[in-house]
């Protein structure tokens, strides 16, 4: 058996030497796929399970109801972030309230209606919240008491899909704490 194997080995070596000595100028024939399926198979394995990131539900601490100080939402026109005259009047009142309650801190949330792309609405909400903050600062409120955030179109006040709902959703909302 061993002898047989060595003969085969030598023969192979000789053949390959002949093959190597041959000039490589003939056109290579395209390699056909093997007629037989190879024994070795590609393994189809399960995907590793992704890690799920669980956000902790936030606790609401020291929050006070904005309606207790009568700070209602202020509204914006479609696709706009500038303050309407009714909003300016309301904010002038709110500035007096905030001056009278010097320990109250405010988060101004900018919101949009659903008629816009999610990403652009995040930006539009930032601008709305920032306009409200700037106006309050111009009325003498210390900017360290005011923070802003945008929720884009993600927290509608009214879930409807009509003009009435949209008008209510384009707003700045106030969150207060002491």
């Amino acid at each position: 058996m061993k002898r047989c194997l060595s003969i085969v080995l030598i023969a192979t070596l000789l053949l390959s030497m002949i093959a190597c000595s041959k000039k490589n100028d003939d056109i290579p024939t395209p390699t056909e796929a093997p007629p037989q399926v190879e024994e070795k198979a590609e393994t189809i394995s399960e995907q590793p399970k992704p890690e799920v990131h669980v956000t902790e539900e936030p606790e609401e601490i020291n929050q006070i109801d904005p309606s207790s100080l009568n700070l209602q939402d202020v509204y914006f026109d479609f696709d706009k972030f500038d303050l309407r005259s009714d909003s300016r009047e309301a904010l002038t009142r709110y500035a007096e309230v905030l001056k009278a309650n010097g320990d109250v801190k405010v988060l101004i949330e900018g919101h949009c209606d659903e008629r816009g792309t999610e990403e652009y609405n995040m930006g539009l909400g930032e601008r709305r919240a920032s306009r409200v903050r700037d106006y309050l600062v111009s009325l003498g409120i210390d900017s360290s008491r005011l923070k802003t955030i945008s929720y884009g179109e993600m927290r509608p006040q009214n879930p409807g899909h009509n003009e009435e709902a949209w008008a209510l959703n384009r707003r700045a909302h106030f969150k207060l704490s002491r």
Partner: protein
Amino acid sequence: MKRLWMGTLCLLLCSAAFGQDKEIVIRLTGETVKTENMAVPDFRLESNDPDYAKAVQTLERVLRDDLENSGVFRMLAPERMALVGDPHAGPIKFDEWLSIQAQFLVTGRVKRGDDGEMRVEVRLYEISSQGQILAKAYRGKPRLSRKMAHVIADEIMYLLKGRRYATSKLIYAREASNSVNHRILKELYIMDYDGENALPLTKRGISFAPSAIRKGRDTLLAYSVFERPGTIDATYGIALKPTLASRPRALFREENRRASSPALSPDGSRIAFSMATDGNVDIYVMGLDGTDAYRLTRHPGVDTNPTWSPGGHAILYTSDRTGTPQIYRMDADGLNNQRITRENPYNDSASWNPVHDYIAYVSRFDNDFDIFIMDLKTGSNYRVTSRQGSNEEPCWSPDGEQLAFASNRTGQWQIYAVNLNGMNLRQITREGDNRSPVWVAGD
């Protein structure tokens, strides 16, 4: 839509002219593509294991759907394949397959493997050359028959067309079941490109605006996430998962500066994003560790929604510097800004095709959006959707031949896909509200 009808008409005319063997399909963008007939007769089951019959049926169905989704192969109907003898009995009779206008033939034998695994032996033949292109075995548990079909479909697609998509994945944002109207929660999920095997990536929060790329054998994921939403300490920022199996890292947390809208660069080395500072939103770019943030746009308006060119040399973004949102292009270093869209007051959500010189974007009409494709070489626009609800957030498949998007045409937000030739529109998700798809290569 008119274009689509013309395409269909042309298709009908062509098939009348040339019989059923070769068709010319008009792409949405005016180019022509050839479709060819592929025969995938039922596989031969060489084991009577009770699990196998069902698994093989699934495998055949998914494989045919995958190949049909290429937009360039049409599956021959079973009645036509029945005219030809059993491909598993003896050598392939190529003349017979030619007589039913098959250009390609896929055969399979399913045997019993080790450890309860199926062994599926697949062969692919080109009828015209009478050649065998593929002879390969695959093994896997019967319950993984869908994945096996996707791997086989990608192998065939890669051999014949040099592209893959069947193992690709869609990552998307789903409205959480415990959402209420005033308190929307969003979770990110990943699913197969055909909508199966959805798995959650985040839970119990507001995670949105995903961006994902394939880096080696890992999927890199960046997204926007709210922290302490609904409270006075609410903020948001960007989270990064270096692999889907790893914990997310919070990137770039600064007082009074909020980052969102991340876009991973194609080489997976940088993140373009938008950052709000005092109501001014601009585009920045940073490293994956959240350092070296560099400002790219300097306008008082909202600059957001960045997306990279396939080579990473340019960035498309949306800016309202002229008063309404429009799409702009800049070099990756923030230079050479130029406006891309002009035709409509509100254009956003640009996505650069990874292969062709096209961008997909949305344009607003009344209260809804429709999806358009722009050929960057000519500047011509092609309409993909036409006033069927709102159609938003387009993204391209890794091979650039398919487009996924979110639409509320059924009353709920669902994800749809369509081929670049405007054909084969299909609904991918069915339950709940699903938006913001991103398409990423898989294995």
